């Protein structure tokens, strides 16, 4: 059979579809016509496979570029805002490493709001803002409170824990629950 004459084809994967096509042609046309027809079919298959290889190569190159770029992207630490002005220096590694460090608030929030931290001891949401995940009281470097308010706030936290209003080794369960809800995508309870 003519079918066997091009069984050398590298495109063995196309074999099954190719087989059925050529058999139909074998049935419908004469033997002399069948060979060029089959060759054209072969060429078409060959072209598409070549295109596929080209696309795959391009894809591999692109993904290689992307995987090379991704580790570099994390060095662009600055969060830009519209209206910022930048000079070439602002794009330098020295500047970018400064933007990596977080800074505490510069003003005392209790002074700004005219609140006494000691009166807030029942408000576990406020108290949790000044505690770490593990229940430790944050340093004034992080809270930005002036010494008087920092002492009062620390006392309020200790008071809340002593009264049993707040756990001492983790955040308040209601806050943990709200965070878990937000993380699972079901929205916040608040």
């Amino acid at each position: 059979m003519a079918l066997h004459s091009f069984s050398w084809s590298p495109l063995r994967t196309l074999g099954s579809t190719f087989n059925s096509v050529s058999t139909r042609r074998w049935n419908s046309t004469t033997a002399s016509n069948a060979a060029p027809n089959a060759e054209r079919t072969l060429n078409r298959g060959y072209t598409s496979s070549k295109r596929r290889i080209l696309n795959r190569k391009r894809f591999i190159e692109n993904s290689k570029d992307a995987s090379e770029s991704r580790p570099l992207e994390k060095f662009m630490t600055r969060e830009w805002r519209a209206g910022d002005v930048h000079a070439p220096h602002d794009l330098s590694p020295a500047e970018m490493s400064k933007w990596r460090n977080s800074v505490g608030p510069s003003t005392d929030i209790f002074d700004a709001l005219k609140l006494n931290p000691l009166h807030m001891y029942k408000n576990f949401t406020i108290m949790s803002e000044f505690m770490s995940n593990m229940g430790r009281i944050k340093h004034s470097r992080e809270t930005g409170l002036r010494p008087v308010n920092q002492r009062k706030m620390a006392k309020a936290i200790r008071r809340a824990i002593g009264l049993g209003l707040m756990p001492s080794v983790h955040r308040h369960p209601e806050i943990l629950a709200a965070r878990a809800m937000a993380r699972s995508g079901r929205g916040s309870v608040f």
Partner: protein
Amino acid sequence: MATTRLSPAASLLRNSRLFALPQALTIPQDVHASHESNTATAHHPTRAAIITPASSLARGDWGLKRPLPAKSTSAKSQRPIVRIKALDTFEHTTDFESASDHTVTLEKFQDLHLPMSLPAKINYSNNNKVKHVSPFETRLDNTERSAGLDDPAAKKFRHSGPYLADQTEAEFQAYLKTVRKSKPEIMQKLREHFVAQRTADRRKEAQDSGNHFEDLDKPIRYTEAEFKDYVKSLRASPKSLGPVVFEILDIPPPPAVPSDMMKSQYYHSPALRLSSEEYATAGPPKTHPSAGLTYTRTQALLYNHPKFGPQTYQRPVQARVLRPKGHFKGRKGKAYASIGGIVVDDINAMAFEESSHGISQFDATIPGGAKYWANPIRASVNIEGRIDLTSERATPNSRAPYGVQEYQKPNRFRLSPVVGQSGQQHVVPRLDRARPQFGTSSKSRDLGTPEGNTETIAQELMKKISS
């Protein structure tokens, strides 16, 4: 002349440019920012930039207490411009740094040939262009002291009182204290207001009845009891007290709150007399609405191309992609680009079409960083003093007269023979007839034999996986 009567030392000081150096502005701390750099370029300059003529520069003479070193001024830059942080310090040095970050940005901004506009809400969802209103219009360019305020249609951008809506509790209590202290003046102003209202009432009455015109010029006399009744009536209805309070204290109106969110009793603010409606929602501006960036009033500039005639767009400028869209610090965001050193949020970042590389994803392979061509269309200064620049991606039509093109990634693979041949041919290749022969294994110049290619790809893949 005042200067002739002054002593030589006093006139020296008066004519001194050094003494004319203005005080440094304070840059408001961004309360919400958790990250910052103390050496980053601020969004507006806070100190005056000074230059010196070439003859003095050669000697390092900047008109200061001591010469500045050449190594960090004239040897470092062709046009050194410095700002002085301290004239003299404990260490007997002059604290200075280069001011070219802001001066060069200003030059680059003026190269865009954009006039300043008053801020306006830009709705990107519809295509309506926001009308350009210049802040230098006589009707709008008023502060609380301007003479132009007598015009009933005049609007102002600045009040003498503070913006209550962004005050903290402590600041508000401090302001209340000053208001209480100035109660006599406020009551005097209220009396004037009362007289003005009485006059208006009398005029209206005269107009209606038509027989009291001779009384109009007489000064209005009122008893203390009448004034007390007026104050009582104001207190009884917040609707009429609100405008009087805002007018007498000269404080900017608060942002409008939907009335269904309010209690039935609230203090109405007076009719808006602000230069821009944006100031009613965002607050009063910190600077003049132009910030002195340009003094051009009109947007009606037309660039005449020497070869192609008048152009709709000016020459497009390159925008550097500072942050591609996509995930950043764990959240999705829009892309940020910068035009002439001014950061703009790329408004087309939400669009589906991807015009150039490096916007959707960071690409380190682009030489010099990702850029695209943009047409800046509008510039204004927002209430913080930041430049609000609006730009569009440059269309192929606006790019064509200047022969600029978007960056194309070099294709590392051979093009198909049709495209390859079309460069040498003088006729467009017919794609529908006489299909090009891609295929026979003897002629394939493109990729070698397919088996070889799949093999190499497989090998590369295996290498990648194993490494």
